[in-house]
């Protein structure tokens, strides 16, 4: 693997029992890149992230990160990958505070049979400051808004001091202004901390101004490149199977997928 390639899919096919989720994926992600992964429901976006985490093993080909097969990742590798899964509904009564939630990100580094140290607590406070949630350390997680909870989950990933951040639909279920603030926060963190970020989303227009490249998938990799290069009606129609309109305004590219209006 070359020096600045951090994640590599080589002819990777990934299947769940009888269903193939991804077929023959060839993809290289470079260090310090912000890559958006776009595709319809069931297209294999989440599977892609899970294969990088080593939670699913390719049936053919390979998926590598840090020069290591993902399914053979050891703790020292996993500690360098911050993962923010799709945020399900957090039970508002679940007994966990913001501080405890973020501290969980340190557990893998702390190791078995050890307790968090003062240094770990300082890292947690620092991560909370990074996501502007330092005033909520003792608040129950379930009492926060969806956007605030998402910031806490980002802090949990940051406290691992990761090199790679994998995010699965981090703006789902959040109002539009908060979605923008979350994506801006991720973009700033990516630049300031020199992170490699892979972000799965349905919202093409939301992330296209921020990402370096976009991967368009629907069980196969249809296109990878800068948003202006890959966001075209032909490719998007092939992926979504619906009418797609691509327009440009103010230097930005905007996509409307399957938006029918009947008069």
């Amino acid at each position, binding site marked *: 693997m070359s020096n600045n390639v951090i994640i590599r899919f080589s002819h990777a096919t990934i299947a769940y029992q009888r269903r193939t989720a991804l077929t023959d994926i060839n993809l290289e992600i470079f260090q310090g890149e912000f890559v958006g992964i776009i595709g319809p429901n069931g297209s294999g976006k989440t599977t892609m992230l899970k294969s990088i*985490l080593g939670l699913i093993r390719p049936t053919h080909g390979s998926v590598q990160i840090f020069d290591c097969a993902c399914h053979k990742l050891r703790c020292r590798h996993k*500690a360098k990958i911050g993962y923010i*899964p799709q945020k399900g509904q957090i039970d508002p*009564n679940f*007994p*966990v*505070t913001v501080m405890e939630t973020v501290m*969980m990100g340190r557990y*893998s580094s702390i190791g*078995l049979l050890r307790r968090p140290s003062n240094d770990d607590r300082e890292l947690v406070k620092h991560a909370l400051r990074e996501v502007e949630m330092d005033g909520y350390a003792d608040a129950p997680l379930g009492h926060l808004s969806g956007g605030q909870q998402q910031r806490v989950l980002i802090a949990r990933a940051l406290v691992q001091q990761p090199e790679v951040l994998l995010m699965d639909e981090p703006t789902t279920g959040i109002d539009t202004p908060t979605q923008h603030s979350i994506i801006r926060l991720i973009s700033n963190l990516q630049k300031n901390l020199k992170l490699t970020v892979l972000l799965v989303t349905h919202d093409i227009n939301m992330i296209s101004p921020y990402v370096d490249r976009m991967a368009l998938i629907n069980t196969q990799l249809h296109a990878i490149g800068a948003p202006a290069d890959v966001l075209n009606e032909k490719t998007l129609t092939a992926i979504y199977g619906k009418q797609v309109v691509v327009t440009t305004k103010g230097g930005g590219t905007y996509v409307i997928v399957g938006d029918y209006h009947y008069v």
Partner: protein
Amino acid sequence: MFEMLSFEFIQRALIASVIIGLVCSIIGVFVILRNLTFIGAGTSHAAFAGVTLGYLINYNPLSFAIVFSLLTVWIVGYLNRKGYLKLDASVGIFYSLTMALAVLFIGLMKVYNAEVYGYLFGSILSVTKGDLAIILILGLAVLSLVYLFFKEFHFITFDEEMAQASGIAAGWLSFLLLTMIALTIVISLKSVGAILVFALIVTPAAAAYQLTFSMIRMFLYSAVIGITASVGGVFLSYWLDLPSGATTVLFVSAMFFLSLIFSPKRGYIS
């Protein structure tokens, strides 16, 4: 009150009830938060089937209770983890299967054995020195494991997938937790009974869940409620000459309803 404390069987019952109340209520926190409530019921009946087999072939019933309950939680856990069957469905199958085995083993006994029914309904006042030793050893083992792996159990209870992704051995720890649930049920079997042990695991933790937003406090409240109910059950059953298991469960259920009323999460009186 002090006169009853001079009886050795009462002393043993009180020590046993403190340990069982503590272990059940601590394990109960994980059972409640991980939605494993039904597995407690299934496992306690599996343990009872083991006891009946022990009496049938005249061999230590507790050892069979351990084997039956461990096999149940491990198989149910495996089926669920592999995605072959949902947890409630597989527990339902084992619940009825092991009860059928228990009925079969009782039917095969040539003579009526009252001790078997003691395991079904519980009798803490009949705990022997040997029983107490087993309760003490297994109870300390379960509590030690909770202490040693507390932060990992906390993580997998809140978000198992994330824990696994960050390098925590979530699968292994889940099976360890199931094993601890099975052992907790086994040590409580004789005192509280297969039918009622489930309440001593679930109810204190469910009551504590109503009272706090902090997991540490939930453990603390659950332990206080569990020990209070367990020890209170012994006193009440002695004074009122009532079955000890049923008295304990009624006591802890009353505490649960009080916690509902005073819950800061509900706001009825808070």
